[in-house]
């Protein structure tokens, strides 16, 4: 519990990202930390003196900042309830709550770090080796491992209040990934040639590595930092360029689709062409205790110095395999850090290497042919030891230096992930000691450091060439001269660079210690990898799985290069032969919330929805709609329908208007029934099957005129049925028009003994039984509104389904309620409807049927008209008919008081499952449990008895094949 303010920062610089006059406070655990606006969580904590940021995955060793670029696991923290946030990329906001992960009780004193002493008990592949026996222990040990290992925990309560992340779908001509010198040049060249460009960068400002480093002080005679800011300004102002910052490309998918994770959500960006100016990543060296807090990548240190003006330490030791270490050392000197020595694996370096000359001039000790062999300290660095290299191995000629900072550079690994997710070929360039693109594609082109050339001049030219070439491919007029001029310039620049490049991979000495970490995410050491190869896992893909190297949050960004080097060293294969692991998306960690986006289900509401809300209905979501489940007690509602009159909003029914010369022919073909002989003004039940004879949907078909039918489908199926009709129309060349008018009409069913009297008060249509028969359709006025009335069974009472244009829905609903008031009219919901329809044995497709159910299995033989000739399903139905019914849907009524649940088992006398309950309810009319069961045909006979298992106890039920309520259908005809 303390208050931390910032230690003094370095003198202001034009490149810094902080605003020194604006202070922001964040909470770090129980501490309050004050920092500058523009600081990231990492720079704020570092500036306040914190050095330990996390604990290792397996051994719980203290870890500090490593890359400061969002590419390692070391700064993962929980921020405002979200675990695994990269602190070095996340800018602070007032009141932000930051907590450490994976340590207990505190980061500084993590008791789990005792595991570090037990490394002998955790050999490579210990998951595979130690967890087999005794089996019973597995559940205990796995729970323990999960508690101790791993990353942050999801706070399920906090995650409920997280902002919704939207998904956006965008298209562009050219997507440029990376806003460094190459990306900026490419974007500008392409946009100037007339194509639209979307530029994406992970950082908050453009410029790439030139934002923070001085690898080249001048570009074309000017200060390179000025060149880059001028270029950035031009790109940002260009009308053809859209710049998306703080945005991480998580993968490249088929047909140039990029997934881009942004603070606002996920962008799906389709690009005709992609320019991969993704740069490269500096990678660590492998030496004893290379994971101590204070051992950092050189470029990470340079970011701290130049972007946040932090003085990273007092004394630094630099270890490098290439030029980069020297640039880091220059920045260290500029920041007032003493550079104890530079250990360079290369035996000598070019005499015209300016940086080295300058450093020597400043009295820095440069040690060519030396490698770092260990760091000293327990949690943070207190010193480092370097040794002279002979025959590619460190010798005992060691030198010790006291220091609180070790800057390392193990060379560069290209950030070529989106290239590897495309058809661009990658091969190993031994001069560069890096994998580079070796074949090209018009869909995606590399430019800049990702090609292995770490030179801003080359990058700028590569970018320009890529931009011009892409524009040309996309049909723009690009002067041939311009392109060839850039090509010549580029070739010269590339040759000059290649002539000077010098790299020497660091020696691999597994004897030098057991804490030489290769993979920081998964805590895999050099010894582990060497041992894995020794155990026979010489293939990089299997060794990866066995050792879990490259499998952590950074997905190999820090360790892949070294991993390949070690395997190559141990097996004698060349790096090209060793190959690489697969670069699967996501390239960078992405939260499930980002991927999921907001709820994708758009619930539909009926025109009467507000009335239901006012009436206090309990709303449920079903079949894509929000519907009233009930307004009170569903049993009371059901009783009201049976005894008086009820109304229900059935606007959710699918409604199709089918017309045209061949409309009857179409319906004859897609339904099992016949409809061409249906007289205008009549309604018929329709059952639809797939061509294999299994049930798809059911509904009513009303013939309005000779060439016009009005069809209802079940609520959830209207899209499917519409597509189905249209498909057969297209396939069979049937001339008809099918229009989905579901939303255009509101439908209300009024049913019960008093339905006629209620409706009669509102309509001019004659409702007398002789005038308006069961299964007839008529149009007329209801409450002064043009309506269509269908007299159908629905809930088994005499009743009408009233269809009116949606706009009038509420009005008719209210009119019916008023008209029925004297009879005690009751609105009823889906639950009462289900009970009522179940009592009448009306099936619900997909509830009482499954993908194998045929009409014969539900005793609907009468609905299948083989005599009408060929129709959809006729072949399958013929086979089903010949084969005979095996399982049949039957009604059941419980003998006792138990009420089964949907899905309960029907069991044989010996207790084996033989069938299942598809629908079950308590009947208010009968007072017992009842419903539908699917059982073997031998059992499913009238008068049969079945056993139903309810909550583990078997109960007896009687089988019936006739409706429970009004089996002869008298009431609905009254």
């Amino acid at each position: 519990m303390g208050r931390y303010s910032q230690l003094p920062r370095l003198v202001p610089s034009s490149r810094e990202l902080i605003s020194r006059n604006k202070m922001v406070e964040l909470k770090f655990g129980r501490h309050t930390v004050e920092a500058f606006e523009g600081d990231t969580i990492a720079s704020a904590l570092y500036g306040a003196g914190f050095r330990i940021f996390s604990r290792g995955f397996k051994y719980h060793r203290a870890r500090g900042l490593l890359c400061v670029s969002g590419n390692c696991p070391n700064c993962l923290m929980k921020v405002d309830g979200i675990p695994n946030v990269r602190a070095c990329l996340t800018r602070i906001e007032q009141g932000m709550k930051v907590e450490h992960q994976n340590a207990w009780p505190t980061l500084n004193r993590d008791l789990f770090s005792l595991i570090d002493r037990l490394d002998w008990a955790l050999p490579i592949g210990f998951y595979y080796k130690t967890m087999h026996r005794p089996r019973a222990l597995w559940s205990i040990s796995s729970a323990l491992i999960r508690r101790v290992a791993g990353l942050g925990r999801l706070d399920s309560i906090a995650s409920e209040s997280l902002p919704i992340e939207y998904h956006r779908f965008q298209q562009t001509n050219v997507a440029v990934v990376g806003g460094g010198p190459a990306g900026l040049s490419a974007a500008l060249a392409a946009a100037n040639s007339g194509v639209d460009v979307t530029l994406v960068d992970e950082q908050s400002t453009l410029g790439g590595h030139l934002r923070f480093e001085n690898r080249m002080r001048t570009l074309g005679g000017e200060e390179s930092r000025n060149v880059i800011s001028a270029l950035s300004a031009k790109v940002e102002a260009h009308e053809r360029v859209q710049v998306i910052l703080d945005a991480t490309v998580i993968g490249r998918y088929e047909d140039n689709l990029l997934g881009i994770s942004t603070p606002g959500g996920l962008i799906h960006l389709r690009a005709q062409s992609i320019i991969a100016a993704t740069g490269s990543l500096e990678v660590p060296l492998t030496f004893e205790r290379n994971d101590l807090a204070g051992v950092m990548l050189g470029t990470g240190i340079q970011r701290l110095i130049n972007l946040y003006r932090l003085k990273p330490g007092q004394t630094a030791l630099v270890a490098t395999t290439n030029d980069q270490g020297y640039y880091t050392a220059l920045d260290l000197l500029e920041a007032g850090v003493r550079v104890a020595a530079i250990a360079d694996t290369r035996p000598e370096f070019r005499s015209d290497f300016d940086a080295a000359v300058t450093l020597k001039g400043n009295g820095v000790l440069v040690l060519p042919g030396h490698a770092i062999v260990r760091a000293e300290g327990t949690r943070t660095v207190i010193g480092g030891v370097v040794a002279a290299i002979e025959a590619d191995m460190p010798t005992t000629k060691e030198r010790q230096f006291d220091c609180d900072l070790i800057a390392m550079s193990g060379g560069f690994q290209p950030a070529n992930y989106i290239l590897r997710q495309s058809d661009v070929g990658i091969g190993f360039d031994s001069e560069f000691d890096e994998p580079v693109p070796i074949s090209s594609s018009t869909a995606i082109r590399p430019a800049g450091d990702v090609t292995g050339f770490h030179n801003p001049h080359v990058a700028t030219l590569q970018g320009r060439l890529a931009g011009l070439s892409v524009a040309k491919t996309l049909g723009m007029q690009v002067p041939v001269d311009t392109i060839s001029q850039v090509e010549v310039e580029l070739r010269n620049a590339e040759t000059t660079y290649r002539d000077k490049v010098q790299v020497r991979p660091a020696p691999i000495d597994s004897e030098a210690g057991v804490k030489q970490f290769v993979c920081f995410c998964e805590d895999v050491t050099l010894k582990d990898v060497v041992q894995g190869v020794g155990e026979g896992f010489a293939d990089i893909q299997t060794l990866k799985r066995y050792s879990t190297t490259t499998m952590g949050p950074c997905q190999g960004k820090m360790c892949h290069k070294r991993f390949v080097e070690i395997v190559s060293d141990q097996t004698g294969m060349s790096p090209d032969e060793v190959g690489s692991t697969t670069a699967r998306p996501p390239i960078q960690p992405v939260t499930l919330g980002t991927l999921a986006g907001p709820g994708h289900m758009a619930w539909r509401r009926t025109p009467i929805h507000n009335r239901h809300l006012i009436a206090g209905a309990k709303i449920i979501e079903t079949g894509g709609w929000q519907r009233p489940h009930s307004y009170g007690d569903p049993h009371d509602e059901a009783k009201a329908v049976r005894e008086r009159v009820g109304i229900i909003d059935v606007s959710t029914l699918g409604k199709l208007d089918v017309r045209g010369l061949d409309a009857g022919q179409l319906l004859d073909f897609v339904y099992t029934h016949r409809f061409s002989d249906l007289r205008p003004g009549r309604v018929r039940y329709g059952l639809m099957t797939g061509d294999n004879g299994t049930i798809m949907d059911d509904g009513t078909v009303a013939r309005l005129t000779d060439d016009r039918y009005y069809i209802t489908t079940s609520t959830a199926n209207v899209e499917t049925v519409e597509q189905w009709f249209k498909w057969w129309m297209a396939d069979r060349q049937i001339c008809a028009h099918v229009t989905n008018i579901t939303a255009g009409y509101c439908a209300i069913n009024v049913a019960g003994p008093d339905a006629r009297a209620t409706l009669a008060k509102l309509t001019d249509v004659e409702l007398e039984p002789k005038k308006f028969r069961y299964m007839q359709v008529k149009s007329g006025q209801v409450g002064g509104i043009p309506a269509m009335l269908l007299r159908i069974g629905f809930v088994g009472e005499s009743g009408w389904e009233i269809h009116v244009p949606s706009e009038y829905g509420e009005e008719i609903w209210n009119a019916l309620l008023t008209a029925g008031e004297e009879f005690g009219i009751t609105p009823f919901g889906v639950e009462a409807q289900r009970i009522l329809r179940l009592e009448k044995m009306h099936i619900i497709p997909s509830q009482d049927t499954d993908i194998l159910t045929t009409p014969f299995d539900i005793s609907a033989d009468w609905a299948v008209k083989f005599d009408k000739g060929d129709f959809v399903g006729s072949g399958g139905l013929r086979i089903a008919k010949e084969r005979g019914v095996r399982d049949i849907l039957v009604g059941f009524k419980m003998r006792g008081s138990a009420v089964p649940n949907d899905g309960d088992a029907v069991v044989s006398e010996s207790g084996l499952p033989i069938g299942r309950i598809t629908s079950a309810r308590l009947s208010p009319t009968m007072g017992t449990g009842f419903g539908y069961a699917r059982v073997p045909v031998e059992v499913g006979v009238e008068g049969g008895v079945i056993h139903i298992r309810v909550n583990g106890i078997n109960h007896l039920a009687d089988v019936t094949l006739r409706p429970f309520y009004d089996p002869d259908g008298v009431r609905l005809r009254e």
Partner: protein
Amino acid sequence: MALLIECPNCGSRDVHEFRHGGEISDLSERKGISDSDLELTKYFYFARNNAGDSKEWWYHSFGCRQWFVAYRNTVSDQIRETEWPEKRLDS
């Protein structure tokens, strides 16, 4: 999946607007009541799934809501041509 699909009615639209309706091949040729059990079974359950050229049904769900025919390479996912089904029947 291919980036843009040329609907014969609406022009080129993103793949998300469409539903794929399966291949059109000798196996998808409709079989009816008078065909043998074997023929019917092949029609119900089998498809050519050709690696390469494939003639297919596509439906423009979020557009004109019409079925049309597309010629797609199932390996490269490039759609060579789209057309109304009439043409298919004529040829």
